[in-house]
């Protein structure tokens, strides 16, 4: 069954006085306006936030129409899980117009998880191992070693993020930084420096999905109608390397991102070579590099040459994280997965302004990944 993106919107991500719920209401209303419909036309809603409250309470602001509103709490895959639920709602005939919304507002500084919440001995907290940046440092350290990739390449990826963020009016970090400044910004978890990391942030993104003809934004003749060809959510299989692991098996490691990407491509009936614009999880610059290979866009190690050649820039063969990604937008956990989809929608419609990929592109891809080992991928086309 064809699922169309009738409306897509996001808020300005960055420190503000707005609450996470304020962001969410703003994003939903903007997505409805983009779709050309009122809240009363929405037949079902799926939404979530990691730490900014229950999404279903938004009906108090949006309108008490009695619609089914399901809360989604899936960590960094919250947006992706909301999306797959919305798609299934349309496919099953539950509703013709469905909302997916994700929002969050995190305090400044690193996340501070407790070991007991993760099934770990308290000593892991006492001794300072409950810090997510360590996982990213350890994983990319090994990856650089195995595949001959340099720290300078990490800096180039982050440099791209700030450059694209400067072209994205709703991004948080909008000041370009050079690779030298990024390398020089102080180590956080070797080999990663401060400016290679995203920061927990705030923001919301919303999508109004519709069966064909069910909303003006999804009507024939509205210019470039974007289709949501597939969404896949996966949790980790045995043998993957995830955050807060007291041990991992030896040998080659599984990847939940690879699983989710493969499932999304199979359901869409295409392969990575057909993607013309992609948003992949860039919790830190190394994550973007590793996820590109895990999702199938290049061989492990090819990133060294491809990044240097500008392959992933706006004018390159595969523009990646065209709105600056998590590095330039910050990471409001519940929102990021949907922010990525909103960006792809703009790129496919040709409404991405100064950061528009030439074409415009016709096939887009999103990938999000997070603790405790969950990934969501989507394929969109126009």
């Amino acid at each position: 069954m064809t699922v169309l993106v009738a409306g897509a919107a996001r808020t300005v991500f960055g420190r503000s006085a707005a609450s996470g719920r304020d962001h969410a209401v703003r994003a939903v209303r903007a997505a409805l306006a983009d779709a050309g419909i009122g809240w009363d036309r929405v037949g079902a809603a799926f939404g979530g936030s990691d730490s900014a409250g229950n999404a279903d309470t938004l009906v108090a602001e949006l309108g008490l129409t009695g619609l089914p509103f399901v809360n989604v709490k899936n960590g960094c895959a919250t947006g992706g899980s909301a999306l797959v639920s919305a798609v299934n709602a349309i496919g099953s005939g539950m509703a013709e117009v469905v909302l997916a919304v994700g929002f969050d507002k995190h305090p400044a500084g690193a996340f501070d998880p407790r070991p007991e919440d993760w099934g770990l001995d308290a000593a892991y907290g006492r001794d300072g191992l409950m810090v997510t940046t360590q996982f990213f440092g350890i994983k990319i350290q090994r990856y650089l070693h195995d595949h001959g990739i340099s720290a300078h390449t990490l800096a180039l990826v982050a440099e791209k993020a700030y450059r694209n963020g400067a072209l994205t009016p709703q991004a948080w970090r909008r000041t370009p930084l050079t690779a030298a400044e990024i390398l020089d910004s102080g180590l956080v978890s070797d080999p990663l420096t401060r400016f290679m990391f995203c920061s927990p942030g705030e923001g919301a993104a919303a999508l109004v999905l519709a069966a064909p003809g069910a909303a003006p934004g999804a009507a024939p003749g509205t210019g470039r109608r974007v289709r949501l060809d597939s969404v896949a959510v996966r949790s980790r299989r045995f043998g993957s390397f995830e955050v807060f692991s007291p041990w991992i098996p030896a040998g080659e490691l599984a990847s939940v991102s690879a699983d989710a990407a493969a499932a999304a491509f199979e359901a869409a009936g295409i392969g990575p070579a057909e993607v013309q614009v992609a948003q992949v999880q860039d919790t830190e610059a190394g994550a973007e590099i590793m996820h590109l290979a895990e999702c199938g866009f290049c061989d492990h190690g090819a990133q060294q040459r491809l990044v240097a050649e500008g392959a992933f820039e706006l004018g390159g063969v595969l523009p990646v994280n065209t709105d600056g990604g998590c590095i330039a937008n910050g990471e409001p956990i519940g929102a990021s997965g949907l922010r990525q989809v909103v960006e792809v929608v703009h790129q496919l419609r040709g409404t991405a302004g100064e950061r528009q990929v030439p074409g415009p592109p016709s096939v887009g891809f999103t990938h999000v990944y997070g603790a405790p080992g969950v990934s969501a991928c989507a394929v969109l086309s126009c």
Partner: protein
Amino acid sequence: MTTYPAAERCPRCGAELRELELSRRGLLWSWTVQRHQPKSPPYEPPAAGFAPFAVGYVELPEGVRVAAVLDVELPTLAIGMPLLLAAGDGVPRAVAA
């Protein structure tokens, strides 16, 4: 299939597992350095105060890579370096072998 800490059942297939004492000597699979003081709670800095410390995974002959605090000189950190593991007070600790 080896896990750390010892698990009752195999996380892959659910079969019962038996306890095994792991080798102490292994090789460093990967590492990082925690450069900033982690948030408290739950972090408890040492009596001498916080100093950047290394953490990583030590690969043992039993086919398991164990997360450990690495009590080594930071400039000596290198993937593949031999280390000696001890159980520590909950989190394993490694010293240069």
